[in-house]
């Protein structure tokens, strides 16, 4: 177990800045996710942490010691790659035990350890198979086993689920979380799937174009996103955003088109233009509010997402259970003021006004 600190990390490929001045401190035993869209520098950051790639500038500290000059192995980190990177000519047993064999550990010690790890990952039946004779999920577990057996102080995962089908992803996600609870090893996990990040992490680092946009708990990034970008990136369905203005008539309102949403008296009115973000769970469809036409009905099991035309845009509501609403029907829309998130229209940062 270890702490990890990234201090003013920069990475340039020629003129292109892939990672821009990132600062991040990961506590002992923490599970941190690097979240962001494709190309935002997640893998680059992870590779620099692993020592597979040099930093252009900045310092990496593990357990308080600078490790910039150390190779991947000396940093005592283990990594699980997106495509597993199993050694194709080695059996499952040899793949998992490779690091121990390199260190010339005694044969029976290697065997014992490999067997323990394999049992934990339910791989003991496949010990003598080659990677290509395994399913994707099994290969994935071998890759994890190869990392686990090293008993590293930090685990690094680079989108380890992206080659798995949806059901297996969910299962493996649970297994990784259990593994982390059991071993308690500091882990950095890269993904572009916000739901994965929310469900796994102690804290999430949201990246955008090589910059750190927000670093916080899943609750932070979901309920208190630092910016429009984070708000849009996190949560299903995507947050709806409207332009509007404050109106003080008959009590304070936030006016979006013809709809005025009442605000509490304690509300602090800013002196800049603001946009407002609305999450689906704060939108109620029923008998109060403005008449709106239903556009789209998407059942997802426990909920149905109903998208309606509203004030020159669209807003999506979350309805419990299966809804029998139909497109083109008319319904009234009400917004819960508690759920509004306000963003500075220019800087796109969220403002704490309530």
């Amino acid at each position, binding site marked *: 177990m270890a702490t990890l600190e990234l201090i003013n990390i920069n990475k340039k490929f020629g003129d292109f800045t892939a990672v821009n001045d990132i600062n991040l401190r990961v506590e002992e035993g923490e599970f941190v996710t690097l979240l962001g869209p494709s190309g935002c520098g997640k893998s680059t950051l992870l590779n620099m942490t692993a020592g*597979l790639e040099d930093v252009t500038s900045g310092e990496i500290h593990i357990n308080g010691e600078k490790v910039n000059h150390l190779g991947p*192995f000396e940093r005592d980190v283990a*990594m699980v790659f997106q495509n597993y*990177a199993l050694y*194709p*000519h080695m059996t499952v047993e040899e793949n998992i035990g*490779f690091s121990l064999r*390199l260190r010339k550990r005694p044969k029976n010690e290697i065997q014992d350890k490999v067997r323990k790890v394999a049992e934990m990952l339910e791989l003991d039946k496949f010990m003598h198979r*080659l990677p290509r*004779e395994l399913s994707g999920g099994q290969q994935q577990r071998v890759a994890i086993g190869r990392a686990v057996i090293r008993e590293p102080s930090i685990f690094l995962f680079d989108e380890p689920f992206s080659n798995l089908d949806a059901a297996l992803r969910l299962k493996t996600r649970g297994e990784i979380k259990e593994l982390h609870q059991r071993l308690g090893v500091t882990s950095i996990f890269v993904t572009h799937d916000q739901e994965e990040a929310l469900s796994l992490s102690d804290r999430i680092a949201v990246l955008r174009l090589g910059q750190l946009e927000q670093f916080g708990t899943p609750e932070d990034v979901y309920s208190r996103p630092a910016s429009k970008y984070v708000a849009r990136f996190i949560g299903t369905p995507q947050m709806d955003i409207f332009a509007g203005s404050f109106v003080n008539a008959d009590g304070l309102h936030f006016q979006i088109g013809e709809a005025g949403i009442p605000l509490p008296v304690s509300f602090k009115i800013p002196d800049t233009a603001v946009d407002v973000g609305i999450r689906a769970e704060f939108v109620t469809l029923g008998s109060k509010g403005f008449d709106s036409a239903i556009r789209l009905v998407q059942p997802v099991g426990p909920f149905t997402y109903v998208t309606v035309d509203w004030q020159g845009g669209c807003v999506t509501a979350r309805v419990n259970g299966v809804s029998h609403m139909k497109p083109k029907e008319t319904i009234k829309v009400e917004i819960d003021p508690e759920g509004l998130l306000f963003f500075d229209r220019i800087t796109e940062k969220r403002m704490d006004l309530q």
Partner: protein
Amino acid sequence: MQTTNEYNRKRYRLGLWFVAPAVFVLLIVLAYPIFASLVLSFLRVRFAGQGLSFEFNGLNNYADLLRKDLFREALFRSVYYTVIEVVSVIVLALLVALMLNHPLGRSAFYRVVLLVPWALAPVANAVLWKWIYNANYGILNQALRGLGAIEENIIWLGKPWLALNMILVADIWKAVPFIALLILAGLQNIPSYLYKAARLDGANAWQQFVHITLPGIKTTFVISIVLQSIWALKVFDLIYVLTKGSPADSTVLLNYLSWRETFSNLDIGYGAAIANVLFALMLMLALVYIRALRPRQPQAQGG
């Protein structure tokens, strides 16, 4: 079902017509000579008056092989030649390929330069080396004298073992580029993430080479060894140009012997018998080659 079967049969028959011309050509240029050479090896062929006379000779030509010292010596020399050539070419080609795969060697310039020996016509290559080795005017003697390595000119092609080894040098020089490119392609097929994984597992450069690089080019190695063995067994032009088998038949290898018995000594049946021995050797190598190229079948059961 009836109609699809009918349709497939028609397709199949039409397909046969399409491949027929190619098969016909192959039969003429490949199968016929092989068959003819096999038949010839059981005959005694003599020049009588205006034409040739053929006479059944049983296995006598093959019995001769066992009886004649020259064949046994040529066989031994061919084996020596092949082993040395294969080992030297593979080792040198691996080194060249590793250099070309290094970031500093990636420039296309090196690959073009590398191909020059391979692109030379075989006889041109042989003539080139004949001049290099020339005892009086050859650049090899001049260079070595200039460096002070030798005082007297050496007659490179004048001493039995020396001559054979000098032919080997010329042959290796010509063969390395192709094998190096084969191995280079093999090296470039090894995904870089395997090296990353190995570094994380604590492998140093040498361990990465042993555990990732070598297994990654194993198939390429097998293919190279087979191709190079065939190449070495059939060497002819170099011997023909450089030594014609001299001195004292010390550079007579199997293929050259076969040619000489057939076309110089006009012992056509015997020459054919030698050629067939060579053919059998190469056929075995070719089978290994085909096995190596066949994609591996995934095994259904693990241990």
